[in-house]
């Protein structure tokens, strides 16, 4: 506004554009989408600008920050203000049931995965849970398997990542190293039908 060098002004204005886009979006905004509409912007530069913005928010004691979630950036309040905001919103968001969490865990690691495999691992029928997870957009149908009756295969969605605050599937929580079989025995593949889930991160 005053005597700033043109370059600095340019930087400040690009920073404000990135900030405006993330602020205004109602879903996580990928760096490449920002880079796609702002001239001379690259995803790496977007990352730098976000880091700079976050440093500024911290310095100024802002109530929010930019978080990397579900493959994009989202501006969210800091957790320490949760109590006040919950007073504001009155109704609280319902949490997932144990059945839903267990089913989601298996889908996340075994995706794409058929219903029969989910039921084999959980030992219970999962029809109802699956249907609701699809309706809630935490799980999607990702195709059909090769086997008999070409069963539907299930996978997690972007909404799943956002719901759990995960930047991507790689960031899934790791289970404690539990050996699936005693060391002297062959690994588990043998115990399951071949159809099982390829793809996705290994547990």
């Amino acid at each position, binding site marked *: 506004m005053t005597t700033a060098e043109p370059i600095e002004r340019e930087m400040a204005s690009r920073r404000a554009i990135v900030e405006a886009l993330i602020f205004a979006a109602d879903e996580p905004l990928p760096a490449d989408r920002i880079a796609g509409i702002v001239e001379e912007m690259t995803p790496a530069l977007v990352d730098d600008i976000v880091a700079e913005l976050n440093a500024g928010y911290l310095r100024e004691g802002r109530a929010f920050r930019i978080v990397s979630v579900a493959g994009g950036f989202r501006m969210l309040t800091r957790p320490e203000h949760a109590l006040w905001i919950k007073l504001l919103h009155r109704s609280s968001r319902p949490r997932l049931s144990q059945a839903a969490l267990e089913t989601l865990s*298996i889908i996340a690691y075994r995706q794409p995965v058929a219903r029969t495999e989910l039921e084999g691992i959980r*030992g219970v029928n999962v029809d109802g849970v699956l249907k609701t997870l699809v309706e809630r957009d935490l799980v999607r149908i990702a195709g059909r398997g090769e086997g008999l009756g070409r069963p539907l295969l299930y996978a997690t969605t972007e909404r799943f990542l956002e719901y759990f605050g995960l930047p991507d599937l790689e960031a899934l*929580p790791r289970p404690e190293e539990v050996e699936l079989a005693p060391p002297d025995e062959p690994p588990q593949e043998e115990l399951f039908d071949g159809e099982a889930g390829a793809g996705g991160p290994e547990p």
Partner: protein
Amino acid sequence: MADVDPGPHRVRVEALDFEGPLDLLVYLVQKNEVDVYDIPIALITAQFLEYLESMGPERLEGAGDFLLMAATLLRIKARMLLPRPEPVEDEEVEDPRRELVTMILEYQQFREIADQLKDREAAQSAVFGRADAATELAELGASDPEEGRRATLGDLLKAFAAVMEEAARDRVHRLEPVGVTIEDKVRFVRGRLRREGRTSFRELFVAGEPRSHWIVTFVALLEMAREGEIRLRQGDRFGEIHVYAEELRDDG
């Protein structure tokens, strides 16, 4: 943990609620502090059946899964009682419990992940985005408020189910006698036009009227348009359609 261990037989599970048979098995293994690779199958089976007996009628809809597991346990128990054949050279003797152990460990592993997801869910419930963002986007003209949120496969399925159900219900209506003729509807439309010179297309379809009547109205309008008695006009692309009386028409 307790100094005076009442003994594994005393594990009481009646009052507890389990997600499924594996949940119960994991609980029993932990509660009895037994080695999962060397499960005392007779003991665990006995406790498992004890729980099954205690299940109230309100849990019956999930009982099938428990019964299936009970059958597996009993089968393993029976096989454990068989005299073991002398191990032939180069041939592993399969422990009847092996598959069960793998199931328990695998389930346990996913349950740990579920616990971690639960923690993450709790952490996420403490952060909030701008609840106002969608409104602002609409105000800025960056999104159409008429349009819904991003549709998912679940929405698509639900929409289809709803629309087919609705259509099935209408089909029942269609079996009822129509009770109105095209001539009736032509008179009705003319009556409207005589008063106002034009009318909104939508208003000709009387709310609450059976859909079969709408079809008759529609056919009547087509007929009148073909005869040059009326003209249909749409304001803008998605705007309201209006029906105009052709002025030069000499209504006979």
